[in-house]
């Protein structure tokens, strides 16, 4: 059987009982709870704005802009989630299960758009397809001045850019699911007379559901939090409203209230989704090694590489080509030794963050495995909400407690020792990494949680009956099985941290400029040509680890 329901273990009731399991204090519960509190602080700081409503700003927004913002946001999120879900799953199926010319190349290269920030893809699309772009200009020259392309600066354009930039989240997770899925279920299906397509729809796809859902959840959260891309297309969403309240109407309370609504919305959706598959258990059926691929023949043999090639071209080759073209133009003027420093800091930050966040997410996923129950689920959901909050708002929510702690510390040092102390947290890497943890925990958690679902309780029991202790169980059974999920999590966090801007800008120590902040300096003044150079550097720096790690997990 592919997926079957198990009765849920009831969580002990009562606040105190929550930390106890069979009378003993549960370390897992304590850990989950502590982590949730840590991550919750910034979110609560943001949500505390609900206590001080700014009625005037609210009324204005509600009367004039909110209905449209909400409609745009829902349309965009739905559109991008569905499109990225289908595209990512389809491509993952092709490269993981089927065989066709070029499969090996596409299997890793289709991941490459991950290293491109979505707003860069967006800007390149606008540059190419707007009225003044080369394509429209050529068409006008050939066919007369009346010829018009459909307007790219629109919701459709923004959805296209986000889909092309975000589908790799689904692709990466779904591909891992298909690769590690046991072949036996499909064989059983075929023996029962299912066609190849039915086998995909009725067996492989449901089996991969936790991974696909995890990927789509990441895509949806990223879309909800996106500001840069929609700004390029001047397409107003909920995030736009948040920034408008803050930057233009100078009402941080109103901005934070809007952000709290967004958090609440995401929480409810994710929680419902969680409840929907709460009863499901996913276990691999049969060995996955030594599998054979479905060799495509006839039309499919030609169409598959064409399709993969088309996606790769639009999502990666064209934007990168444009970036390279621009970068070459400014390289002589801008490229200097400082780039090594930008590169070094970006890699260092991304590497440290990927390690720390993946380790934390792994512990969190284990905590959930050890302590099933609605409350734990809710807390884990809460701990991974940071990803859906617009970066700059989250940066504030993180910075306020950091500054508060420093003030407390400095005050204490002054009183106890009578000496002037400097801030302990603000402007340190520790603060920066904690902020990344809050933002990107979800990114590492989704693939790990999905991977952990594959390790069945009966496997644990079998291992224990063979005399393995907990540590051996983890080392010899779990870790090998989790390796793919860990690698996926690390890739995603690594690349995301490299691209991240608002938190890096706000929390970096003096002089800690990275490739991403360099891109910010240029794009904020509209100097896209000069932003291309750091963007290309970021791409190259992000690609090497991605390709290396992919190769390692490739069978």
């Amino acid at each position: 059987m592919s997926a079957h329901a198990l009765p849920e273990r009831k969580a002990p009731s009562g606040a105190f009982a929550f930390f106890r399991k069979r009378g003993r204090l549960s370390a897992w519960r304590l850990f989950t709870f502590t982590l949730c509190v840590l991550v919750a602080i910034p979110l609560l700081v943001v949500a505390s704005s609900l206590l001080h409503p700014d009625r005037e700003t609210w009324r204005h927004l509600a009367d004039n802009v909110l209905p449209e913002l909400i409609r745009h946001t829902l349309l965009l999120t739905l559109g991008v989630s569905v499109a990225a879900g289908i595209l990512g799953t389809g491509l993952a199926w092709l490269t993981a299960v089927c065989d066709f010319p070029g499969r090996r190349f596409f299997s890793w290269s289709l991941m490459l758009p991950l290293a491109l920030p979505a707003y860069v893809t967006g800007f390149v699309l606008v540059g190419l397809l707007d009225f003044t772009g080369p394509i429209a200009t050529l068409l006008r020259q050939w066919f007369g001045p009346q010829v018009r392309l459909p307007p790219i600066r629109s919701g459709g354009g923004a959805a296209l850019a986000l889909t092309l930039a975000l589908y790799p989240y689904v692709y990466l997770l779904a591909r891992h699911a298909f690769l590690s899925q046991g072949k036996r279920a499909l064989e059983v299906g075929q023996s029962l007379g299912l066609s190849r397509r039915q086998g995909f729809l009725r067996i492989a796809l449901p089996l991969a559901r936790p991974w696909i859902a995890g990927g789509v959840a990441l895509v949806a959260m990223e879309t909800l939090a996106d500001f840069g891309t929609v700004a390029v297309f001047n397409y107003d969403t909920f995030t736009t409203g948040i920034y408008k309240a803050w930057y233009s109407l100078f009402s941080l309370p109103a901005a934070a209230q809007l952000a709290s609504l967004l958090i609440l919305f995401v929480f409810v959706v994710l929680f419902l989704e969680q409840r929907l598959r709460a009863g499901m258990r996913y276990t691999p059926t049969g060995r996955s090694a030594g599998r054979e691929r479905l060799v495509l023949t006839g039309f499919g043999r030609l169409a598959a590489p064409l399709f993969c090639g088309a996606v790769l071209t639009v999502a990666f080759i064209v934007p990168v080509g444009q970036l390279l073209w621009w970068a070459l133009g400014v390289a002589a003027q801008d490229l200097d030794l400082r780039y090594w420093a930008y590169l070094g800091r970006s890699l260092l930050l991304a590497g440290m963050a990927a390690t720390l966040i993946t380790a934390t997410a792994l512990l969190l996923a284990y905590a959930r495995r050890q302590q099933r129950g609605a409350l734990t689920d809710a807390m884990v959901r809460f701990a991974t909400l940071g990803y859906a909050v617009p970066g700059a708002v989250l940066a504030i929510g993180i910075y306020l407690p950091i500054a508060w702690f420093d003030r407390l510390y400095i005050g204490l040092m002054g009183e106890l020792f009578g000496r002037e102390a400097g801030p302990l947290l603000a402007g340190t890497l520790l603060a920066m990494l904690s902020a990344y943890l809050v933002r990107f925990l979800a990114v590492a958690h989704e693939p790990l949680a999905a991977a952990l679902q594959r390790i069945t309780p009966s496997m644990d029991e079998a291992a224990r009956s063979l005399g393995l202790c907990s540590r051996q169980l983890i080392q010899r059974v779990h870790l090998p099985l989790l390796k793919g999920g860990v690698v996926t999590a690390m890739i995603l966090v690594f690349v995301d941290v490299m691209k991240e801007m608002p938190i890096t800008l706000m929390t970096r120590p003096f002089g800690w400029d990275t490739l991403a902040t360099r891109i910010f300096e240029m794009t904020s003044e509209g100097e896209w040509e000069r932003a291309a150079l750091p963007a290309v550097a970021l791409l190259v720096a992000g690609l090497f680890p991605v390709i290396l790690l992919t190769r390692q997990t490739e069978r």
Partner: protein
Amino acid sequence: MFSRLLSSLILLAAAVSPLAHGEEVVVYSARNEQLIKPVFDAYTRATGVTIRFITDKEGPLMQRLKAEGPNTPADLLLTVDAGNLWQAAEEGLLAPVNSPILQSNVPASLRDPGNRWFGLSVRARTIVYNTDRVRASDLSTYEDLADPKWKGRLCLRTSKKVYNQSLVAMLIAEHGEAKTERIVRGWVANLATDPFADDTKMMEAVAAGQCDVGIGNTYYYGRLMEKKPNLPLALFWPNQQGSGVHVNISGAGVTRYAKNRAGAIRLLEWLSSPDAQNLFADVNLEYPVNPQVKPAPAVAAWGEFKRNPINVAKAGELQAAAVKLMDRAGYK
């Protein structure tokens, strides 16, 4: 493993924090690194004073200052747009500075009446037009662009950009809300296409004939024409019979809890001096604030014009009203 990671992180953080030696001024800057670093480097060369700075957008920088309170390391806050400086002053983040040098170097309309911030360069927002399709004599004022004769011929940048918010704020100061709303509605009705995300794209659309006329900052025009000198684009100075061209500033103020207040004031005074003014304005093709200093030759070539003499602080005061007005008028 975790504690080892943690301790190595702390060690690393300690290793990268700079050693204190010599005088140092700390700046939070919303003016970009590439526009401000050459100026700071020149100051360090001239005085030996080190400048440490961090860049971000105005909003986050102000929140950071606020959160840090008395513990902030920042001595100086540098931003673009008077509205942001006005807001920073309103929130008590800046301290008044009594400096005869600043008062003589910076004209009264380009600094805070309460001396909490000072303009350092002037940015003019003016009309650009397609020279193949529009004659300069067809143009007159910002208000005239709302006339139906421009229907389907106007391009604008998004109302989310502070430059347009300041322009509309100044119109409110002059005409009141009701009339300004009619003007903005007129602009929206005349749009040839949806508003653009940046000035450069908007100007390229004017040059390509998607529309005939637009409103933009002069330095974007300067940068674009440097790259593509053959574009059929020109600047027009509007409202010369009336209140003058709308100008904004980039500027700075000394933070309320500055550790090195004297050093921050000296830096600010130097930035307004002829030595620095050329450098400060030239790197971004802006106009100097100091009336004794001439603009760079490339900038001077765009001709002389009458500026709107109203104090730029007004833009800050009326910014929220302007944003709401533009929302009501359907200006995206």
